[in-house]
């Protein structure tokens, strides 16, 4: 079998997964800081390499559905929590920088000074989860393409590593323009993306058939965006009614 098509297949299939992870890592880095975001991603890649090195082809016995259910489920809960806060911020219910205040309070409570280093656990955990999930997909792609023999696995691995290099280079180029997007808008987008990705992977793991397979991600993203925008409007109306009721109570 020719090696070229296998390298290309590994490259293209892995590139799709890498770009999906990059989207989240970039958005998280722009909103929460690059140190936590990049280190979460790097640690996930190292963990994946160690797992692959330790277990090799035995990993083919692990059902990908279980990985999708577990990590996808965590991502849904994590993403919805993030989106909920972004909606409440946009509606003016909570302060724009409430998390910085909460973190400072937590730091005081724990009596540590680690926050001064710019370390952000939320950014780390988010990037770690999405990189683990997409990285696990890449591992299964490589194992699948290379199922015919050890040499084929090497060819598919070369394609996957090339995809990773292209993705990292793209991330370095596009991360600066992202900084010009308003912080709360980016946080809003991250919440929408995390929820959409988590829902998609959980559904895949649960045996659901997404129409158009990975194209459903675009539909889910749009769907969550519509839900979130509607929720912001509803919250603003509810908040205004509450404020009016308070003002009426004071006047009387």
């Amino acid at each position, binding site marked *: 079998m020719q090696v070229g098509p296998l390298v290309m297949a590994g490259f293209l299939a892995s590139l799709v997964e890498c770009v999906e992870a990059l989207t989240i890592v970039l958005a998280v880095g722009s909103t929460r800081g690059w140190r936590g975001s990049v280190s979460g991603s790097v640690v996930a890649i190292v963990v994946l390499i160690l797992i692959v090195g330790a277990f090799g082809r035995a990993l083919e016995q692990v059902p990908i559905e279980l990985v999708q259910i577990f990590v996808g489920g965590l991502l849904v809960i*994590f993403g919805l929590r993030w989106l*909920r806060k972004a909606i409440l911020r946009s509606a003016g219910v909570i302060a724009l920088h409430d998390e910085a205040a909460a973190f400072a309070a937590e730091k005081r409570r724990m009596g540590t000074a680690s926050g001064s280093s710019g370390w952000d656990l939320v950014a780390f955990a988010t990037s770690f989860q999405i990189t683990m999930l997409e990285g696990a997909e890449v591992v299964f792609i490589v194992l699948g393409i290379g199922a015919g023999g050890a040499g084929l696995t090497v060819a598919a691995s070369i394609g996957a590593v090339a995809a990773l290099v292209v993705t990292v280079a793209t991330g370095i180029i596009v991360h600066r323009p992202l900084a010009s997007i308003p912080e709360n808008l980016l946080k809003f987008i991250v919440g929408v993306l995390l929820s959409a990705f988590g829902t998609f992977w*959980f559904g895949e793991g*649960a045996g659901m058939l*997404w129409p158009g397979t990975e194209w459903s991600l675009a539909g889910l993203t749009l769907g*969550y965006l519509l839900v979130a925008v509607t929720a912001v409007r509803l919250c603003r109306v509810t908040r205004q009614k509450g404020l009016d009721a308070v003002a009426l109570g004071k006047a009387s």
Partner: protein
Amino acid sequence: MNWASVLLQTIWRLFVDDGAFALSAAAWLAFMWQLPAVGLNPIWNCGLLFFGLGLILVHGVLRRTKDHHH
């Protein structure tokens, strides 16, 4: 407070800052995980999964907004 409990609390807070909201989402996921066994159209299940999570999200933010004024 030892470091292990601080670590566990920190991880817990990564996922949960409103217990009822997180529990609702987790319960819906657990329900949807078992739903394919019922034999409904798998594409309908996708819509149901999204619809339920969207509803939980809207309910969660509205409840928080109302609590804010009470």
